[in-house]
């Protein structure tokens, strides 16, 4: 449904040099699938999402949706950001109905649709509250309801649960799973959390860092509803961890500057140096 071919995007740095965020990325998103982009921070996965959302323009390459080129944001591609991005001056229900208002839908229909979407995230009781009166997790659920209200062709989620605590995140995973089963919407999900990606997705693209490229593709052949203790998921996690490990090493080497290993059962460098000393 959405096709990216040879997409590259760089940013100008302060010293005038160009920093390549993503290079020559090609993949497509199929209708109705839950696709995750997984990678270490700074690998350009959020940039990719912004490009698909139309919030940024690619330097080269082409992104098209159902054959048409994407050249700006549109309500058929709604985004849930890492932070909730709700409008603080509006009540929860007005926030959810905001996009519908832009479409020119009459007020009554608007609030009916908004209520229906709030029902999906189990927040109808809080419809008349303001965002600051809600917990962080609730706000993110409102943001999901707002994005769903437009009945988008694709829902883009940019690390939507990264700022939440573990318990809330687990609850939201369950809710999102429920929503995808009910609505059958196409979803692009950005995360750096391996488990999250495995639990939720049909397909996972692991990205490499600097420059950002698609490194490997994994499919998750497990039916929904899924269970965290499913051994299939764990095997997959180990495989992805290994792929990602190389990338993480690259990042850490750059940041810390000395040989750093994330290897299974490896003894840390510092410990190695001290083995046998002072005997």
């Amino acid at each position: 449904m959405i096709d990216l071919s040879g997409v590259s995007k760089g940013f100008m740095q302060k010293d005038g040099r160009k920093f390549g965020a993503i290079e020559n990325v090609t993949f497509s998103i199929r209708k109705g699938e839950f696709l995750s982009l997984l990678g270490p921070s700074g690998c350009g996965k959020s940039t990719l999402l912004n490009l698909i959302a139309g919030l940024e323009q690619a330097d080269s390459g082409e992104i098209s949706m159902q054959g048409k080129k994407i050249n700006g944001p549109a309500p058929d591609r709604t985004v849930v950001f890492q932070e909730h991005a709700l409008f603080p001056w509006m009540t929860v229900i007005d926030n959810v109905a905001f996009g519908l208002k832009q479409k020119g839908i009459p007020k009554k229909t608007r609030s009916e649709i908004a209520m229906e979407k709030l029902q999906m995230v189990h927040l109808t009781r809080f419809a008349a509250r303001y965002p600051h009166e809600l917990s962080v997790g609730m706000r993110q659920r409102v943001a999901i309801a707002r994005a769903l209200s437009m009945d988008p062709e694709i829902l883009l989620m940019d690390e939507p649960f990264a700022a939440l605590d573990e318990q809330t995140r687990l609850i939201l995973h369950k809710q999102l799973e429920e929503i995808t089963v009910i609505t059958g919407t196409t979803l692009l999900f950005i995360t750096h959390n391996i488990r999250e990606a495995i639990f939720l997705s049909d397909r996972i693209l692991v990205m490499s860092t600097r420059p950002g490229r698609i490194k490997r593709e994994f499919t998750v052949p497990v039916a929904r509803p899924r269970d965290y203790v499913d051994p299939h998921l764990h095997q997959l996690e180990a495989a992805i961890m290994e792929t990602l490990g190389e990338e993480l090493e690259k990042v850490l080497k750059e940041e810390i500057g000395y040989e750093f290993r994330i290897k299974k059962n490896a003894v840390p460098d510092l410990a190695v140096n001290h083995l046998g000393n002072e005997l």
Partner: protein
Amino acid sequence: MLLIIWETSYRIFQWGWKFPSVLQTADAFYDGFVNGQLLEGTLSSLRRLLTAYAIAVVIGTTLGFLFSRYRFLDETLGMLVVSLQTVPSIVWLPFAIIWFGLNDTSVIFITGIGATWTMALSSRTGFINIPPLLLRAARTLGTGTGYRLFYQVLVPASMPHLMNGMRVSWAFAWRALVSGELIARGTGLGQFLQDYRSLGDTSSMLCIVIIIAVLGTLSDHLCFKRFENRLLARYGLTK
């Protein structure tokens, strides 16, 4: 309590006509409202003030928006506005008299001019401080980048700053108004102050000062402060 100190010190220090006693002032108040033109004068002052203020808020907000949007304007005209803001608006009165004559328009002009600069700077701050995330979210929901984005997102998002600007520029306008009226013609509080001075009627003069103070406090507390507090509570900005 204050009134008692005032009255006794009047009697002890024998201020005579130079500064009025409580009773004289109260008397002048009564006289002014029942027989005189005090009420009429207050209303016409308020009318001028509101006209000037409304114009100032609209122009100021527009300027502020332009400054926040176009860097070139901000660095040229914006700098000019900052320096203009430090100039007391009464200095424009001589110019205004030349341009518009010694009439209402001049007073409205200098009342508005002080408020405009303040409003422009506050709204500029407001527009600049809108989280970019909100704008992106709005655009993905189909607001576009034009007029709808402006009045549905930009204005409400910068409302706390705009509100503050409106409050401060109200105070600026109020001051400029009275000083403008002191010099220009027409019925108004400032003009009365001048008239009573020539009559040596200090108690009526004090009346006017009190009216100005009361109106200023009332408008700030009953209107702006209340509205601002409600706004801050709604935006979740109160501690």
